[in-house]
């Protein structure tokens, strides 16, 4: 059970998806925890309700970071984050694994969303829609985006690095522009209200009542669930499939070819890696992930305008890769949760602080240092609402944090959160002999 770390006796053993027993255990536990998350177990939803924790002064009245367990709005953010994981894994294949920097990932999400809406959405006077079931529109969204990815990929053979980034950046603007044309509006709906997207429901064909309803509240296996909980479970399942796919791809011939191209494309070609073919595969796979994620995201939101698939979203994905750790699946997953949940954590934290701003003790002093409720207070975060410049509103603070985090990670931890995790892991792996 306990083996020497990093000792593998065969190639198969080394390239297993879960090479060690500890990893297997952790993975199983993580999956179980994931599927239990939406439910309101007292021990999960209110760890701060436990008498033992209650007696600890700081934690006793509710640490901000524990609020998310079992909470309805946090469940939504978690679902958002899981969908983003799928899309980010796609970009990880393209940028992290094959080294092709793309700023156009939001475009592919958009293509997926509107392919999904075209296939599965309901037609009105102003938008197309064929009302097909989810088993068609969800993969269809991926395929649609993959086809567009294939069309774009020859550009990547011609261009490299910065130039490719600029070209893919152009895709985002092209997409938003197309969404605003009369033709594009047939897919995307009104530029500011958007269109309705298909619902996540399991149907055989176009029948009225779905076999399994995900987007309506109801009971599953005898447990009453809200649509929010059901969507969470469904999205979690889809995410696991894609994570498995993403982990596996790295172990295949394709995965090795992509990494060879990333490390030095000419050398790879000399060794017999067909550059054109593999860049095409990278674009297609990455776009497939993005397409499915885009359709899920749109369906999860329900209705949104085309301009949501904008440059900011693309940059968010780059941030996820850089913060999480480019080229690694675990890093991408960590990065996605980090980037999507960070704004909420910051908000919860400052709410929690501001509730305790009045009064005595450490928390109140920290609060005074960080928050400013009135004009002329010291803190950089404003809890008052009318603040055009300084102190920063929470919204502005989040934007600033983004930039700061990207810079900090690039300079101090290029491997991202994954790198930090590896360091921590390696320390404990050799404990007590870590030096």
């Amino acid at each position: 059970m306990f083996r020497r770390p990093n000792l593998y006796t065969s190639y198969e053993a080394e390239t297993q998806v879960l090479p060690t027993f500890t990893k297997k255990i952790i993975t199983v536990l993580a999956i179980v925890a994931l599927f239990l998350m939406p439910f309101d177990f007292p021990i999960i939803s209110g760890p701060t309700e436990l008498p033992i924790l209650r007696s600890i002064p700081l934690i006793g009245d509710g640490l901000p970071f524990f609020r998310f367990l079992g909470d309805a709005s946090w469940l939504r953010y978690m679902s958002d984050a899981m969908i983003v994981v799928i899309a980010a894994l796609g970009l990880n294949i393209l940028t992290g694994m094959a080294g092709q920097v793309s700023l156009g990932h939001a475009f592919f999400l958009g293509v997926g969303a509107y392919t999904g809406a075209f296939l599965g959405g309901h037609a009105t006077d102003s938008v197309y829609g064929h009302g097909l079931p989810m088993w068609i529109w969800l993969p269809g969204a991926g395929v649609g985006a993959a086809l567009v990815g294939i069309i774009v990929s020859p550009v990547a053979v011609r261009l490299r690095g910065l130039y490719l980034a600029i070209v893919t950046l152009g895709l985002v603007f092209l997409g938003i522009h197309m969404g605003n044309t009369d033709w594009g509006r047939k897919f995307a709906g009104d530029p500011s209200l958007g269109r309705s997207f298909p619902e996540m429901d399991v149907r055989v064909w176009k029948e009225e009542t779905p076999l399994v309803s995900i987007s309506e509240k109801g009971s599953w296996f005898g447990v009453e669930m809200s649509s929010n909980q059901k969507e969470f479970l469904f999205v979690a399942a889809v995410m696991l499939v894609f994570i498995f796919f993403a982990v596996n791809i790295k172990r295949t011939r394709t995965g090795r070819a992509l990494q060879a191209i990333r490390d030095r494309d000419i050398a790879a070609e000399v060794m017999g890696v067909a550059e054109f073919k593999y860049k095409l595969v990278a674009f297609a796979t990455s776009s497939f992930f993005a397409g499915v994620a885009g359709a899920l995201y749109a369906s999860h939101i329900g209705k949104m305008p085309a301009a949501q698939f904008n440059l900011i979203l693309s940059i968010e994905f780059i941030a996820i890769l850089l913060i999480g750790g480019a080229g690694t699946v675990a890093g991408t997953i960590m990065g996605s949760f980090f980037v999507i949940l960070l704004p909420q954590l910051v908000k919860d934290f400052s709410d929690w602080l501001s509730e305790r701003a009045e009064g005595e003790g450490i928390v109140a002093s920290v609060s005074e240092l960080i928050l400013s409720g009135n004009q002329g207070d010291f803190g950089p975060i404003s809890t008052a609402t009318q603040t055009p410049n300084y102190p920063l509103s929470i919204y502005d603070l989040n934007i600033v944090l983004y930039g700061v985090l990207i810079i900090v990670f690039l300079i101090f931890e290029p491997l991202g959160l994954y790198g930090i995790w590896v360091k921590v892991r390696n320390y404990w792996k050799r404990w007590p002999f870590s030096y």
Partner: protein
Amino acid sequence: MKKVTKGFAPLVALALVAAACGGDDAADEPADAPAAADEPADEPAAADEPADEPADEPADEPADAPAGEPAELLFDYGVSDDTIRVGMNADLSGPFASLVSQIVEGQEVYWEMVNEMGGVAGREVELVILDNAYDVPTHLANYEEMRVEDESGVVFFTESTGSPHTAATVDMLSEDNLLAIPLTWYSGWADPDLGANVVEINATYCIESMNGVEYLADTFDAETIAIVSLAGEYGQDGAQGAKLAAEALGLEIVYDGEGAIAGGDQTPIVTELVAAQPDIVWMTTTPTTFAEIFGGSVAQGLQAQWSGNSPTYSYLLLNTALADALSAYYTFSTYTALWGANDSEGMNLVISEMQKRRPDAIFSDNYIRGFLEAMTAHQILMAAADAGDITRAGILAAFQSAEIDFKGLAPNQTWSGDPNDYIVRETYLYDVDASIFTPDATVSDADGSTGNVLAAGPYAGTAAQAFTYEGPCFVAG
């Protein structure tokens, strides 16, 4: 993932500067406070006119008295024995924070006043204010938190900031029997298909355009019109209204720029306008693009009368070199009376309550909007309490038959029956006068003026009156 609805931008610009340069012009005249303060469980400010409209104002029922036993009052979610939780999903830290936070503050002031007078149905009204940061996913997450079906939910929303945000919740609102008051004037909200549970207050962009065009055509004897707008729900709804009016009044459309404003360069539009030489120009855009197009056209010698939907104009433009041209050529159209523009009961209520409860606030017309939303919410809630049912469904039913009295702040409103019978057809038009404008004024009062002088209002032109509502003027997605 953030998106900015262009229709809001002007208000934001206005509010931002208002926040930045407003003086402390709060007069300390608490004597003006409504005499109703000592009459618990009464409609606010009803003291002067106790039997205003008895049918609509079932406020003074004994059952409402705080001391009385709460009769058989039905309630389900968001209500307990002593509180009623009312939700706001508002942009408090995003791009429209300065505008929306004033609207929210206006509502807080209103409910403070109501709670002081005994609340509703013997319960205190508690506002649950969550920040959506103008982000659709955040808006939806907040919604999840407030839709909860127990005491910790809310009974309805008195603020739901943002068109795409509100549109994204429409299906859930029907599922949960929740009402929401949005901050948008798109004519589609009156369409039961889109916004069955969305309480749209005041005239729509479409009706506003009809009135504006007709007022300009009558006042300046016009024969030709040019129409310029942004693309989308706001811009094209306004442009469609202008076209309907042009058709009804026999105006020739010499330039049709519906949805023409896109990107940063407005020169082609200016060229078209100058070539077309219209008598009047109707715009549906934001103050920045309006200023560009207006300034460019005037500089090239176009002598037309201009107006546009409310968010097109901001009095802050009077700080620019355009001031004289605006005085000569622009008429400001909007949905409500502006701060101090009339001497109605509602206006006195807003001004005195604000002065009494927020003497340090920088006053602005946004507080009037806050009061309008709160008055709507309050009167619907009172009607529901009167019918003995403040469940979510009960409130929905009360909304469908409620008749809201804005006490002179805006045309009264109802949502019962056919949209044609209830859509608001009156708007307000203000002459712009740069000579009376005081640069740091944020409202027109004794200390200064924003340069807006009431010209007509509530005004309903023949086109708007004859208009038959068969669905949104502009069908958006």
